[in-house]
């Protein structure tokens, strides 16, 4: 076992949470790819807890990993951890989420939630010919992705006085919570035209509520992520649109970069944006869960 330690290099994959299918997918893709390329890979779950994350980093450093593929819990809070790793000589490659430092991480492969949400916002406004009542369902209030998406969305939609947000509630990225929140919102506002949800799980939950209220066909649901369920739901004309992120691409790019780095390549780009693509019933056939066909 020790001998093995010497020749086989170890890659740590730290994911912000495994309580959300999207991140599970991201993590598992990275792990698979890394193993495929002959590394020993281990997945770490930060449970949305930045200080647990920093504990992981401590342990990773002690355990002498060679590289870290990192999906941070927080743009600012995670910087300290990355710096720790850097000063311990371990390269860090950020996946999906950015950290607010251009020097700490070797390279960041980012899914641009903000502009993704902007695209959704534009499409959203189009669909309602610039006027209508809508509901926004936020993710975890304390999570900066929640706000990246919400802000991106509002940066567009708020320019149209016709678009009226009748309710803005949080459902913690949770499908069941989204359903219950939506059920209650519908009691107050049965007359809405659209719902924008901070992720796909919540979109499915909201849709479920609309179904049991019997107005699923009247209300357009928008999600974010591009999960299996929602892709299927868009095909079936249930959900209206989502922002497709590409966890597979992100994960694999991160692994490739790590591999190159460990093989001595140093001039890796500091930032590689992976665009979020708008998925609607029009282009749905080009997509599968979490990616393109």
């Amino acid at each position, binding site marked *: 076992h020790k001998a093995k330690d010497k020749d086989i290099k170890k890659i740590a994959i730290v994911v912000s949470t*495994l*309580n*959300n*299918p999207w991140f*599970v*997918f991201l993590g*598992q893709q990275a792990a698979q790819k890394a193993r495929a390329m002959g590394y020993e890979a281990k997945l770490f779950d930060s449970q949305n807890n930045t200080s647990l994350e920093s504990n992981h980093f401590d342990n990773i450093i002690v355990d002498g990993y060679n590289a870290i593929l990192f999906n941070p819990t927080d743009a600012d809070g995670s910087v300290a951890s990355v710096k720790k790793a850097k000063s311990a000589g371990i390269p860090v490659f950020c996946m999906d989420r950015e950290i607010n430092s251009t020097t700490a991480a070797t390279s960041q492969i980012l899914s641009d939630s903000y502009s993704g949400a902007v695209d959704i916002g534009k499409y959203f406004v189009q669909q309602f010919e610039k006027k209508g009542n809508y509901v926004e369902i*936020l993710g975890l*209030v304390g999570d900066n992705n929640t706000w990246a998406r919400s802000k991106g969305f509002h940066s567009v939609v708020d320019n149209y006085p016709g678009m009226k947000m*009748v*309710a*803005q*509630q*949080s459902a913690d990225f*949770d*499908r*069941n919570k989204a*359903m*219950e*929140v939506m*059920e*209650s*919102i519908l*009691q*107050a506002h049965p007359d809405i035209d659209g719902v924008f949800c901070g992720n796909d*799980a919540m979109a*499915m*939950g909201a849709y*479920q509520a609309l*179904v*049991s209220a019997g107005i699923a066909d009247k209300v357009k649901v928008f999600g974010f992520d591009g999960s*299996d*369920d929602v892709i*299927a739901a868009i095909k079936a004309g249930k959900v209206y649109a989502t922002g497709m992120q590409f966890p597979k691409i992100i994960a694999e790019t991160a692994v490739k970069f790590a591999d190159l780095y460990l093989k001595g390549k140093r001039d890796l780009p500091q930032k590689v944006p992976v665009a979020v693509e708008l998925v609607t019933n029009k282009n749905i056939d080009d997509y599968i869960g979490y990616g393109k066909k």
Partner: protein
Amino acid sequence: MKTVNYAGYVKRFQSLIALLLLCIVLSLLTDKFLTTENSLNILRQTAVNICIATGMTVVVLTAGIDLSVGSILALCGAVAAGLLKNGISLQASDVFIGFTVFGAVVAGIIIGYLIGLFNGFVITKFKVPPFVATLAMLTIARGLTMLYTHGQPISNLGPSFDFIGTGSFWGLPVPVWIAAIVVLITVFLMQKTKFGRYVYAIGGNETAAKFSGINIPKVKILSYALAGAFAAIAGIIVTSRLDSAQPNAGTSYELDAIAAVVIGGTSLNGGRGTIWGTVIGAVIIGVLNNGLVLLNVSPFWQQVVKGSVILLAVIIDKLGHSKD
């Protein structure tokens, strides 16, 4: 004689006053609150917590606690969904066992029951404090759920399964019926059977219970098993309502359940409390969640308001019969 019964009567419905007050206030604040539709909606949403909290009450009455209900909910929901969708296929001999909706549901409930049995066994046999034993199970069951689902939801479970969560019957949502049955069965158990009497006795004075020849382990184990089974039922409802089993379903539901139990006037030291109180407690929480959304309280303020109102509810209720 009268007074005593009256006192007991008030005591049973302790938190009722608080609930009524809450409803009055809300119906003054918004006309959306007191509609039949919304009332049904609240009931439907509360059904899950009522199922969990009912089992929790029994455990708490024995002076125990069960933190694992949330994870049990997730695991059993997932297993039921998994069996329904994929059945069991043994690679070795290429046997495949399919499951009917009924079969899947029963299987889920049985698993919940078994986990409960295990909790109870560990607690009584090895004298592990319930808090630790069930906290450990919270982690274990969650892990098992993740392993079983690979962290991905199991969706599209078909209309007949979805009926459990979304259908209704004589104008009442099915989940409400289920919750009602769970509650009635438990009330019956607690008031009309040896088991119930022993639960109160053990929670009230375990030594005396031992001296009275009560089989304490048996009673305790059963109460945890009950809590497990009811959590499983809740899991099936949740899964069916979403038409999807979420690996992270039920996270921190134990807190809501225990809150319902305690708000309902059951003492965490055991021996004192009623199922009806718990039901009221659960409804209070449900009404609150619903009201905050109806009033579109900003997510930032929501928690502050929710916490304060719960506090107020309990305080009012205590002031109600300060002579204690």
